[in-house]
């Protein structure tokens, strides 16, 4: 019952400010044109400043680039570690928005995504980053395409997007090659590039996300692609993303992370620790028992094929025989993401910087 309340409240809130926002942002944008030039630029155009707080700031994601690690987080922070997460050095970043994801296809080529519709690209292992996409450009591109297609509904939606300004984050990414990237985000944003960010193809049409729900997680296994999001929304493709079907799930709360196992297994986890598993590509779902009711925000499949999850209570959980078992006793700060390190231990990212969890602690 309480889930329903939550959902209703957030829907009302979201609609409320979305509507209002469109008008006010438009007014604001108009104002800004003839207003004074301020020294503080918008976060999407403002390079991140050097910080000594990097190891105690809100970090969101990390990835190996060859043998070194790159992590991203609040205020455009991009960090590099050459000692497997023991120490971190800040790298220059062209933006000050919160970065929500990072991934590398090899030691040189990688992307980071974040708020403001930002996609950053590096071709030198994370030393330099260039903006490949921002919310303003994105909205303009979508509008142009819509106008070319003469689809009234699409034009209307694209115009709204333009007037909103760059206020929509990308929330997860799927990197399939040095130039092939799929990003998903707030209000149903989903885009694909196959040329390293030069041109983008919208996936919004192929996903039946009529309410513009936030998309929190995208996963791929063989030809299966799964996108999980707000209010129990799950889109599922078995043809490598050409078409998507919406899966019925037994939960109306949000899914923040997902995993695809074997040939037909799907694991979903999210709000208040709710976790479900299906072994028939989403036809039937089983509830997974979880002793901790804190939201699960991240997961990975470790070298042994076990699903490891991290929750907001700062605890790692392991999926064993349809139940989640706490793997850590000590409470860490709320965890935002986890990554299996090459030595088998876990690098957790938290609202208070990176935390390395030794393999020993997992048992």
């Amino acid at each position: 019952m309480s889930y329903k309340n939550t959902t209703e409240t957030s829907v009302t809130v979201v609609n409320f400010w979305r509507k209002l926002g469109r008008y006010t942002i438009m007014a604001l944008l108009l104002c800004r044109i003839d207003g004074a030039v301020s020294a503080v630029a918008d976060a999407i155009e403002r390079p991140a400043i050097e910080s000594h707080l990097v190891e105690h700031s809100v970090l969101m994601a990390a990835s190996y680039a060859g043998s070194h690690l790159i992590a991203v987080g609040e205020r455009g922070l991009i960090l590099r570690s050459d000692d497997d997460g023991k120490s971190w050095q800040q790298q220059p970043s062209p933006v000050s928005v919160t970065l929500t994801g990072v991934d590398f296809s090899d030691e040189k080529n990688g992307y980071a995504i974040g708020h403001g519709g930002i996609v950053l690209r590096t071709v030198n292992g994370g030393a330099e980053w260039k903006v490949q996409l921002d919310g303003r450009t994105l909205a303009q591109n979508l509008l142009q395409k819509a106008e070319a297609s003469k689809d009234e509904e699409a034009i209307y939606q694209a115009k709204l997007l333009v007037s909103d300004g760059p206020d929509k984050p990308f929330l997860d990414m799927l990197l399939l090659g040095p130039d092939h990237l799929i990003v998903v985000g707030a209000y149903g944003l989903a885009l694909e590039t196959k040329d390293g960010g030069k041109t983008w193809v919208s996936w919004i049409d192929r996903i039946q996300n009529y309410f513009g729900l936030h998309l929190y997680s995208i996963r791929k296994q063989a030809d299966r692609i799964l996108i999980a999001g707000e209010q129990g929304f799950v889109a599922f493709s078995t043809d490598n993303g050409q078409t998507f079907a919406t899966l019925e799930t037994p939960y109306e709360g949000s899914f923040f992370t997902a995993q695809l196992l074997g040939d037909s297994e799907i694991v979903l986890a999210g709000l208040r620790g709710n976790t479900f598993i299906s072994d028939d590509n989403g036809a039937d779902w089983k509830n997974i028992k979880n002793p901790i009711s804190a939201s699960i925000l991240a997961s990975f499949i470790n070298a042994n094929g076990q699903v490891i999850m991290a929750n907001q209570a700062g605890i790692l959980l392991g999926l064993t025989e349809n139940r989640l078992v706490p793997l850590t006793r000590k409470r860490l700060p709320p965890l935002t993401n986890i990554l299996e390190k090459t030595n088998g231990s876990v690098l957790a990212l938290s609202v208070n910087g990176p935390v390395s969890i030794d393999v020993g602690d997992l048992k």
Partner: protein
Amino acid sequence: MKHHSSTSASPEDKFDPNTGSIIERVLFNNRLIVIIVCALLTALLGWQATKLTINASFEKTLPTHQAYIQNYLTYEKELTGLGNALRIAVVSPKGTIYDAEYLDLLRQLSDEVFLLSGVDRVQMKSLWTPSTRWIGVTEEGLDGGPVIPEDYDGSPASLQKLKANVARSGQIGQLIAADEESTIIYMPLLSEDATGEALDYAKYSEALEGLRTKYQEQGLEIHITGFTKVMGDLIEGVQAVLWFFALAVVIATIMVFWYTRCVRSTFLVVFASILAVVWQLGILPTLGYVLDPYSILVPFLVFAIGMSHGAQKMNGIMQDVGRGFDKLVAARFTFRRLFMAGLTALLADAVGFAVLLVIDIKVIQELAIAASIGVAVLIFTNLILLPIMLSYVGVGKKAAQRSVVNDINEDSAKKMPALWVFLDKFTQRKWAIGALIGGFLLTVGAFALSTQLKIGDLDQGAPELRQDSRYNQDVAFMNQHYGASSDVMAIMVKTPDGQCSQYDTLNKIDALEWQLRQLPGVESTNSLSLLTRRVLSGLNEGNPKWYEFLPNQSMLNYITAGAPRGLYNSSCNLLTVYVYLQDHKADTLSNIVNHVEAFAKDNNTDDVQFLLAAGSAGIQAATNISVKAAWYQMLFLVYGAVALLSLITFRSFKAVIVALLPLMLTSIMVEALMVQLGMGVKVATLPVIALGVGIGIDYALYILSITLVGLRQGTSLSESYLRALNFTGKVVMLTGVTLAVGVITWVASPIKFQADMGLLLAFMFIWNMLGALILLPALAHFLLKPKYANDQKSQDISE
């Protein structure tokens, strides 16, 4: 050549009471009336002095016209909890605050504090005040309630609930210690209580100590910090200060007696100096002033200056008596000889103190007034009343003969005291050059060191109190457990009415906040922008990926509407950015101030302005800026005033240079000493250099005025200087050493402020004395020549 007196009279001549200046005639021909008037004045002012109270005022320590303080005062009413406040940390004996017994005692204490007069009850905060709430970062969006659950009954369940509320209140590190073993009662103070009476710091401090004792007996551990407590502790320490004053007076008396071996005159000199203090303390309440802890040294300084002049008068009279004059005639001759020099010296002191009035900090202005009054009083008690009293009482016969023993042997240098012979060498070229080179090297070295002189506090806690004092231990406790609570700088952001949630403004604040957090000494920050980051994440089901300052106006409006009090004001035209600091060291503050100033320069628009500064650290920063400006301004003015007065006295620019250069060396060396002692320039230490110059000029005036008389009569520099040493030099040494020994005992004072001042003053007494005895003749060798006396326009200053 007769040496005993600048007048040509000899003891055998009949004294004509109608000679001398008009002032002398009026005073000495009506001696009894003068004595009676002074006695009446003493009775009146002595009675007034009993009404004198010691109190402090937070407002009086503010540089009222400084731009930051102006900003603060403009918006004071709109700001929440940034004024003068006390913090009481209440530590649970059980090691956790989630204990029914602890919470109960905390409630009782909180209630008692609430009822103290002068507490700003609306803004008072503790775990138990309804204003302490947890707010809205839940899945349901914005939610909240009082931290103490409404159905709190002390049961384990409600304690558990409390713990959960505390965790999401954002008060950990502010009201609740990070280790959750103690909580804070935050009590903002009004400058006046309900009846309009000024806050009585001593009484307040006492009431707090009462509460401390009461609750510590029940097992709680209490720590109290805040300006009020510093002042309370200082006032409480006044008794100790008084005992040290008394000790200094006793030491001075003994040394003067050791020098004169004359009970009568020693007693009279001390009596006159104490009389001056009584008058001064009587005049203060008559004019409506109270004695501030920062001015507590002024009475002693008045005494010290009084001793210096009194001893000169007594010495002059004693020597004249020793030469065979009648005590009345001796008193009049001495008055004739030294009144002008003494008057100039005292006027120089008074003006030197009075220039402190230009400093825009009320406590310093009041100190200036108190000191000027005291010095003015000395003109009556020590320059006029003392010689008149001595003309009645006379001096001991043996003592008088002892005092002139050098006179007789003056012609034979070999029989003069070795010290005189030594000092006289500085009138010769070789020694003069040596002394000047030495002085120059000292100046250069001291100057190099003095460039490191810092403005403001250099340590955590209150530098006026000792590091191991109860108060500073309490501060250490706060810093250890609350880190970011006591030193807060608030930046005010002014916007048009109702525009406080505009994206442009909040975006700037968001950027500024993150910049400030990179500065050393910044522990954390808070603002409406930061709240939007937290709340946005809460609105999105607590997902941290939404921890962002979103460029979306309606979102910002929505969050602003639900934001707690303090981040913006009720008419939505003022935002507050809180910067919590590790300490209030001068460097920490100036770093932040400079950064914000630069930021404001780039980002202020016609509508939106970033204004410094409120909060304890903001006020401290403003004070530091004022004090820094005042420091140079004050030095300039003090020296200007002293130079002008010396010029009037000496009628010679060269003589002014001779008198002032040694003083400047002392000033620079004091700055260097302050660096060595780790003392910063602040409201408490600001006046010390002015006082030092004021006292130092006395010595130079007494020695130089006699030397100049000799030079003008055509005597050689050496001879003139020797005569000055005989007449006034001895007493310069006596007072220099006496006062230095007197104040050096203060080093043992439990009040660090007094100990520091004792050290600085002792240093200045000694160096000013050495400067007057060594550098002065050396400079005179190059600048003042006997032929100067051939100048027909020059006047004999004793006339």
